[in-house]
């Protein structure tokens, strides 16, 4: 138990950073991904093309390469955003941007698939009773799409939680980087350190899956 006590400060900073990266990227990628999905299903072809191009480029790029472009590259062209209020420095903020740009491509596909699972007759019925586009979307399509979107969206967020570890390769001290830091200080055997950090990630994954399961149940009961 005493080793766990020694590990605790490292785990707290590490997983603290992992969770901040996760939550901020979740929010940004969901906003960006939803806008992109709107573009991909739009009847206006330049928007459609942009959305398709975005998804094909960023879904097929390794996250490490995107980190090189953004975390290494942006400071070189004097793009230095900083999410001060979340306590992030420039590199951590750029990591959030890289994670969000990458994850948005996957969010876009999930939202688009979710909208397309709604039966076309539903929207047609809504229009034929005189609902406007906004009403159709808000009252008829989105509530049904939301239900279908929860499980795949949870998968995207779980992948995002694991992907925050890539920041460790760029000098950001989050949970995975703590494996190296604690290993250097030989606080415990590498195996022990690995198991403890792995359990931390498993807990995060389970929490996301659990919230998704509860939401899914809640939504289906509301009907």
């Amino acid at each position, binding site marked *: 138990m005493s080793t766990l006590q020694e590990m605790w400060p490292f785990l707290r900073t590490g997983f603290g950073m992992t969770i901040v990266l996760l939550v901020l990227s979740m929010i940004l990628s969901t906003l960006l991904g939803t806008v992109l999905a709107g573009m991909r299903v739009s009847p206006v072809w330049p928007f459609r093309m942009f959305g398709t191009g975005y998804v094909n*480029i960023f879904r*097929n790029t*390794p996250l490490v*390469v995107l980190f090189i472009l953004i975390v*290494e590259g942006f400071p070189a062209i004097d793009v230095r955003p900083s999410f001060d209020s979340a306590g992030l420095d420039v590199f951590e903020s750029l990591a959030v941007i890289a994670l969000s740009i990458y994850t948005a491509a996957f969010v876009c596909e999930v939202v688009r698939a979710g909208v397309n699972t709604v039966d076309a007759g539903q929207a047609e019925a809504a229009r034929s009773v005189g609902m406007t586009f906004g009403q*159709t979307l808000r009252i008829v399509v989105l509530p049904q799409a939301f239900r279908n979107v929860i499980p795949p969206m949870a998968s995207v967020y779980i992948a995002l939680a694991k992907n925050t570890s890539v920041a460790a390769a760029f000098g950001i001290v989050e949970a995975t980087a703590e*494996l190296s830091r604690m290993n250097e200080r030989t606080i415990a055997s590498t195996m022990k350190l690995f198991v403890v950090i792995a359990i931390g990630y498993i807990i995060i994954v389970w929490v996301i899956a659990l919230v998704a399961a509860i939401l899914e149940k809640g939504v289906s009961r509301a009907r």
Partner: protein
Amino acid sequence: MSSSVLYDAPGPRAKRRHAVYSVVGGAAILALLGYLFWRLWDAEQITPEKWEFLQDPDIVNDLLEGLRVTLSLAAAAIVLAVAFGAVFAAGRLSDHWFIRLPCIAVVEVFRAIPVLLMILFLNFTYSAQLGDYWSIVLALMVYNGSVLAEVFRAGILAVPKGQSEAGLAIGLRKAQVTRLILAPQAISTMLPAIISQCVVALKDTALGYAIGSSDITDRAKLIFTSPFYNNPIAVALMLMAVFVTINYTLSLIARLLEARTRRRGERVVQVDSGRAAVG
């Protein structure tokens, strides 16, 4: 017209309106791309000095050698992952709880932890025995293998029930039914998912960057970190072009196979890369 529930087929007025939106939207997108280009130009990222590494035959050969390592890492990882996935899918479908439960545990745990954590752990603990190459291959094997185990399980379960009942009725044992009847039918429905997983494995080989595995991303690091070039943006754009070309081709193949399977009226198994067994 895109397949969408949101829009009716446009009438003449909507068509005119969409044409206006197209012009305005197209102009806005071009303006955005133009702005990004201008920013790079202004920051002197689109100068001959930043890009001339592509004309140095030594560097290009080094990158090509790196690409060979990347492809070899991905190929080794995916072959081993298929074997790993097959074993653990079979284990999860076992009738005996003492085989089933450990297999479920392994698959769920390895799907929930980051590949990079696994790579670092293997590299710290067994670097003498494994070296960088096999640290990465093994980490990719257990992760992709665990994802594929779920794909295989879903594929086997998706074969109509009458097939296995017929097999059992003519006196085959369960293992024979799986091997002779279910697996051959399941493979075609799983092929697109396996190819999609190749894309994931190929992308994840870039994690070798963290331990210096001399794959293309790791070698590219030497270029952009050298004070002579100092060009992370140019190098990253070059890497993106390489990976997007390869992965887009793989995705296209997966999509063609999926369309073929659909045409035959069979179900297609989807990859679910991260869900744990909650709910």
